[in-house]
């Protein structure tokens, strides 16, 4: 089974367009993640929900974001990519890898090394900034190049 062909068929031949849209959704979800984390760390009073609700939403939104990120990353590795320049592709690859590196660091801090917990806000912020860089080296390039 040709996976790229399958994805193309599913998206009516608009796989790249769907990647652009989903990447933008991921970026927005990543922003929400940081805000929710700030809320349950009690660093912020927005959004006006309880810290427990913020934590639950953060976990749910995180799962959604990571799932979407994995789908997009997979289609990046096997499927079509956008307008290309070596520097953009290189930077996009570096940031794409960094996301999964930071996710690994986050899970390590959460599950294996509780003492790293104090770094979690910075790992989360780093993740968001990396998603921003990924967006800038793919979606922004796609929109401006066409």
């Amino acid at each position: 089974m040709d996976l790229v062909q399958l994805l193309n068929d599913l998206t009516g031949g608009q796989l790249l367009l769907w990647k652009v849209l989903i990447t933008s959704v991921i970026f927005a979800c990543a922003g929400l993640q940081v805000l929710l984390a700030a809320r349950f760390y009690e660093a912020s009073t927005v959004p006006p929900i309880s810290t427990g609700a913020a934590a639950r939403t953060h976990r749910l939104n995180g799962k959604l974001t990571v799932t979407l990120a994995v789908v997009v990353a997979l289609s990046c590795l096997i499927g079509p990519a956008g307008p290309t320049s070596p520097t953009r592709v290189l930077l996009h690859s570096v940031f794409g890898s960094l996301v999964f590196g930071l996710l690994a660091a986050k899970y390590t801090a959460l599950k294996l090394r509780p003492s790293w917990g104090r770094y979690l806000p910075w790992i989360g912020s780093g993740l968001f900034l990396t998603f921003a860089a990924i967006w800038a080296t793919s979606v922004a390039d796609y929109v401006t190049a066409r």
Partner: protein
Amino acid sequence: MRALRLLPLLALTGLVLLAAPASAAASSGPALAAAQAGEAAKIIDFDYSPGRLTVEAGTKVTWTNTGSRPHTATDRGGTFDTKPIAPGAKAEVTLSTPGIYFYFCRINPAKMNGVLVVEPGPDEPRAVRVQAVDPGFTGDKLRFDPSELTVAAGTTLLVANVGGKPHTLTADNGAFDTGIVEPGADGGRFAGHNASVTLNQAGTFKFHCEIHPAAMKGTVTVTGEAAAPGPAAASAGPREVDVGAVDFGFEPNNASVAAGGKVKVANKGQAPHTLTFDDVQLDTGSIAPGASAELTAPDAPGSYSYRCTVHPARMRGVLVVLGSDTEDPNAQAAAPPPAAAPSGGGGTGPGAGVSAFVLAAAVVAAFLGGIGISAFALRRRPAT
């Protein structure tokens, strides 16, 4: 010091503001084009919408391809050809000569046919189009369209052969004669030819087709007094054509080759690509980066669309297979025809909606994330 902690928020805002003008520029392009367009028409797989469009001379007609295959809007009489319009792209043609235009898609000539009616503008037209119609490809009857017309002295009659047989437009008294106007090659798979005569002498002239004199007749009334004319040429195709597959497009994506000629495909990209035809069983298979493959072009002249099966949304092209005496539509672009001025293949932009969505998502993300990061940065730590 506290101000420095707002740096993440400022940096993110800057990032979005930097991206915003570029995105906005990209999204305003199609909107601007739409605002300038005189008449908009759509191409779908496999038809034109509307099928018959009436415009005033000088109107810019814009075709947007909303299908998933490349298509053309090509005058059967050979005066304009948009060249293949990629899915999502647009092409424009400005028609200055009043008359009826039978046009078609030269990639799908049997399925896709439309009619453009160009009515005279406020100014006296300097040229008027007369179509020579026959059952050849359009399934119509032998006739001139229109067969009765009145023009001012000095007006040029542009006689376009939109059928499948040769025709002439000859005055009964010999005052003017276009000579033989050839039809489109291969029974109409290609655009037909056209010729012109300028009518300087006032009077009423009956005319006919020398080849079909019984069925094709008409009358032109020339009023007032007046001035000079000019027609077109032919070419044979190359035996071999090189097509490069790059990341992510074909170079060139509009090539011509003689029937049965060689198509050499070189993968100059870093991803694997194929060159696979849509309507004929021709496929290079996967070509690794740096490798190349060769295909033999179909024997039947015509325009054939192809794609890369790995990147079908981005990589598309059209190969024109030329017969022994077929005019090369890819070479034609260098010499624009007298009656119409095709302009641009149009941008393959993602559309204002997509640009607006991704920009809005980025603004939301920057806003939410910026507040979150700033909150962490400004957080008061408990005294230790």
